[in-house]
Structure formats: structure tokens, C-alpha cells
């Protein structure tokens, strides 16, 4: 499905090799954190507790660290080939950001205004700007979906979803 991402005319933003190195470093960091906490918990045999709490995570983190190290070295010393291919081109990256950044904003707005209002705003904004749909259509979908969710969750199934000042004002 990502067939046309590395076509020649789109400039490469970052290569697979760079990303491989970045991910390997990140995983090394994760294993360092896990090993740090496992050391606090202990990974020895405990009387009547069996292997201590840190036992499993410690060895898992060791394997994670060593395999990430191999991945890192392979990426560092890779010859030109698959690894120097483009990971993502600049325009493609922009398209990804165009949905990723609104997604993060969406979650932040959920925290402020509750899920229903945030969903309405997100759907309308997405359809208008990215989807280039008409205003009527965007607003129609943007209002119907949160309303349907509200009826389904709050009223029918009695599952509370995050609510904000507007719902509080209406007595929910």
C-alpha cells in the first residue's frame, strides 16, 4: 500500500539506514531503563518468592539490548543497498504529519473539552482541510458521529467517556 512513496522525483527526507540506527538506539535506551529498574527489584532467587520481580525483565532487557546492538552495527556498517533506500520522502512525511499532529491535538482537546466535542471538532477539521469536503457534509458527519457515540455509550451502555465543561453544563 505504500507503493509510490519512494519514487524518484520525491526527495528523500531520511534513509532507512538512519531510521534503523535511530530505532536501535531507542531500543537500547529502553533496555537501559528496564535493566535499571530490574536492578532495583533484584533478579536473584528469593526464599519463598522464587525468582525476584526483576528476574524476567532483566534477562529480557539483556536480549533486547544485545539484539539491538547487532541491529545497530548492521545499520552502521551496511553497504549501499536496501538500507540506503529512502525511508520517507519530504512530501510523504508532510502528509503523515498532517494527520499525526492533528491526532495529538485531538487527544489534548479530549482532556480539555471531553471526547464528544473534541471528536466533532476533529472530524469537521479533518474533512474540511485534508479531505476537502464541503462544509455541509463535514458538519453533518462531525455532529452525527459524536451524537451517536453519546447515545450508544452514555445512555445505552452506561459507559462513561471523558466529558468536559459543556456536558457538565448540560447536566451529565
Amino acid at each position: 500500500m505504500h507503493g509510490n512513496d519512494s519514487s524518484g522525483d520525491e526527495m528523500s527526507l531520511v534513509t532507512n539506514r538512519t531510521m534503523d540506527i535511530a530505532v536501535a538506539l531507542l531500543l537500547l535506551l529502553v533496555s537501559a531503563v528496564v535493566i535499571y529498574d530490574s536492578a532495583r527489584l533484584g533478579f536473584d532467587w528469593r526464599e519463598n518468592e522464587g525468582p525476584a520481580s526483576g528476574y524476567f525483565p532483566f534477562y529480557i532487557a539483556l536480549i533486547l539490548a544485545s539484539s539491538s546492538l547487532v541491529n545497530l552495527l548492521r545499520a552502521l556498517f551496511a553497504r549501499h543497498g536496501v538500507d540506503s533506500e529512502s525511508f520517507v520522502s519530504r512530501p510523504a512525511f508532510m502528509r503523515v504529519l498532517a494527520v499525526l499532529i492533528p491526532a495529538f491535538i485531538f487527544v489534548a482537546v479530549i482532556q480539555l473539552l471531553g471526547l464528544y466535542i473534541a471528536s466533532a471538532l476533529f472530524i469537521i477539521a479533518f474533512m474540511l482541510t485534508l479531505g476537502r469536503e464541503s462544509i455541509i457534509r463535514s458538519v453533518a458527519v462531525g455532529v452525527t458521529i459524536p451524537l451517536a457515540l453519546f447515545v450508544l455509550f452514555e445512555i445505552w451502555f452506561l459507559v462513561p467517556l471523558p466529558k468536559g465543561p459543556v456536558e457538565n453544563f448540560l447536566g451529565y
Partner: protein
Amino acid sequence: MEEIASLMQGFAVALTPFNLLLMLVGILLGVIIGVLPGLGGANGVAILLPLTFSMPPTSAIIMLSCIYWGALFGGAITSILFNIPGEPWSVATTFDGHPMAQKGKADEALTAAFTSSFVGAIVAVIVITFLAPLVARFALKFGPPEFFAVQFLTFASFIGMGKGSPFKTLAAMCLGFALAAVGLDNVTGQLRMTFDQEMLLNGFKFLVAVIGLFGIGEILSSMESGLNFSGAHAKIRLDAVLQTWKQMPRLWFTFLRSCIIGCWMGITPGGATPASFMSYGLAKQFSKNGKNFGKGEIEGVVAPETAAHAAGTSALLPMLTLGIPGSPTAAVLLGGLLIWGLQPGPMLFVEQPDFVWGLIASMYLGNVVGLILILTCVPLFAAILRIPFSIIAPIILVICAVGAYTVNNSIFDVWMMVVFGVIGYVFVKLSYPLPPLVLALVLGDMAEGSFRQSMLISQGDLSVFFSNWLVGSIMTLGLILLFWPALRWLITLRRSKPQHA
């Protein structure tokens, strides 16, 4: 054939117009619950439990178990259409179901999934009908070492086949294990890797991770390739069901194997999710088309769905006969039994035959009703893909957010979902495989728990994993599977040698 007489009596109990209506309502509700990620079968049953309070127990359990069937059916829909597993056990269905949908074969994938679900469930019900007491005794043999052996077998059946870089597979799997370890350690009651952060108390939940890795990751990938992911090639064929059914008979062995795995995992109780993974893994290892798995092979839909349903259904057996739930949903149903004044456990069959056999009869009926209902909707579901991406994408994102939130009623999980989305997008592009990661996340806790329980019982003696024929043979099977690729390579090497010589 005492059972048949009892069963007929059960049908008489279940087949009242009121109960049939409840079945229909239950299936429909279940499908809705199954489609919405996060609002899983366990949730759905728990939420509707109080509503059934004023019904007769038999009608109540019929409706609740139908919700369960519905949710089992419904979980596959979003997996296939949008790569979002609506339920944990439909994760493995995405591996081939979604590629099929992308090739324009959504209707075939859906039909295959529903049909396999049906087959799995019916086989499991037959097992329940005729083998209940026998099977209950077998389940009692499972202590911590046996549980660990089964979990080990699940891993072995799935790991021995990775095609990409083995180090990337290993790294992805260990990341899953590490994430699974966050939160409370059940064996010692200590908090691990929470660093005094309240939001980490709950750890990383499997469902949040898969919604992010698969669902959000998929949206990001589609965005990258431009907004051209539209339903243009989602053809609507009215005869899709028949066309798909024609392909089914040649897969009889996959069905059989998946049913056995499913029933086994449901009864022991290992759970529907590990069952679906194990079944997918084995199908891939032993299928002639194994290489095409992951690219839209119908067998890759049949195997996990059959096993998941067989497991989900047979999970009700240990609940009824022993009072232990084989799945979270069964745990909630168990609570329901107590509320209606019924005691689950070995005496239920004796004390409440009407209830038990009514329930078993409703399993047959519920699944038949469910299959008919849901197959007629296949063209409708497939048509959803015709909705333009610019409309469906934001809706999917909103529903994913709802799903991630409801898992634990925590907004932190919604943040994590988006983060997992990024991880999923990056990992897929760098060919870090996602299946080992999610399998480790779902099984990590359980496997670690049973390993340490076994170690406690044996006082640190590893030979406990070979201490009797049962645990020994499962472990041996696991070891064989783990090294199967190497073994196969050796065998071919030996066979080819004489020819060259």
C-alpha cells in the same frame, strides 16, 4: 445417549419465541460491541448483566451468551476492513484478512471469517455436549508447569517462522515482553517500571497497543501514500458467500487442526487469543501456501478465526463444570450465574439441568442464527469500504480513541495509542515484525506468572517441566516446533545429499 435426550429437552427450553427474540437481540448487540474496539465481549456482557436481572436465568444466560457469540463474530469485521482488531482474538485475523480487503476481496475475507467462526463454535459445542465430564477431569490436570508448557508451545509455533532479520524479530518480541512487565508484578505484589507514575500503574494494555500499532499505523501508512486509499476496488458481489464456500472444502485439514487447537486452548484454559495466534502460526508452518501468508491468503483467515471461536466457546465448559472462567467474558458470565442464584461448578449439571441444557441448546441455535444474520450483512459491511478515505479516516481515529479509552477509562491510554501508531508505522517500514511484539504483550504476563509459580512449587528445579507425560509432551512438542525450520533444513539437506553424490 443420555446427552441427546437432555439436549432435546434443552432445545425445548430454548425454543420459545421470547428466547428466540432475545437471541436475535443478543447477537445484534454483540456484533455492535465486537465492532467497537475496546467495548469488548467482557465489557458488553458486564454492562448488560444488570438488565437481565429481572429475567428468568435461562433466558438471561441465552441473551448474554448470544452477546458473546455476536462479539466473537463482530471482532473480525473491523480487523478485515480497517486493520483494527475489535477484539484481542481477532488480531491474527488482520494478518491476512486486511490484505485480502486491500486486494478488493473484503467480502470473501468476511465470509471466510464468519464461516470459520461458525465451524469452530459448533465443533466446540459438540465437544461440550458429549465430553463435558471427561474434559472437565482433563482440565484439572493443568497446574502451573502445564500452563507454562502451553504458553511456550504458543510462542514456539509462532516464532519459528519469522522471515525477516532474526535480530529484529527478537528485538520486537523482547520489547513486547518488556512492555508487558510494566505495572504490578502479580507474583510478588511489587510495582515494576512504574517510576511512581500513577498512569503507569496499569501497564501497557494489549488492546491499546494493537489499536495503535495496527489501526493508527495503517492510517498513517495510507496518509503517506496520499489520500487515494478509496473503496474503488471494493466490488459488491452478491454471490460472494457461495464463491467463498466453494474454496472451503479443500481447507478441511486447516479447519480440523484449528478446531483441535481451539478446543484444547479453551478448555485448559489458555484463552481465545493465544489459540488464534497458535493456530495461525501452525497453519503458516504447515500450509503449502505458507509463503503467501500475510499477503492475503484465505487460509490465514480461516485458521485464527476457527481456533478463536472454538476456544471462546469451549471456554464456557470449565466455567460451567469447574467454576473457573476460561476467558474474561466467561468470568463475567460466572458472576451472572451467582447473581441469579446459581452456583457454577461441578454440581450445576446435576442441580440445574434445565439451565445447563437450555444454555447448550442456545449455543447451537445462537450460532446458526448469528451466521445467517451476519452473512446476509456481508455486502453491507464490504460496502463500508466505498466510503471515501477523507470521511472514514477521522471516524476511525475517533472510534480508536474511544476504544483505547474504554479499555481502562484512562486518557493516558489514548496518548499511548497514538504513540503506538507511530511505532507501528515505523516498525512496518523497517521490517520489524509486529506479530511477535503483540504476542509477547498478550502472553508475557501469563507466561512469566506460570513460570515463576512452577519454580516456586518445584523450589527452582527446572525438571518440573518434564515431570509427567502431559507437561513433558507439550514441552517436547514446543521444542520441536521451535527448531522446526532448522530441522526441516536438515531433513532436506540429508535427502538432497544422496542425489548429488
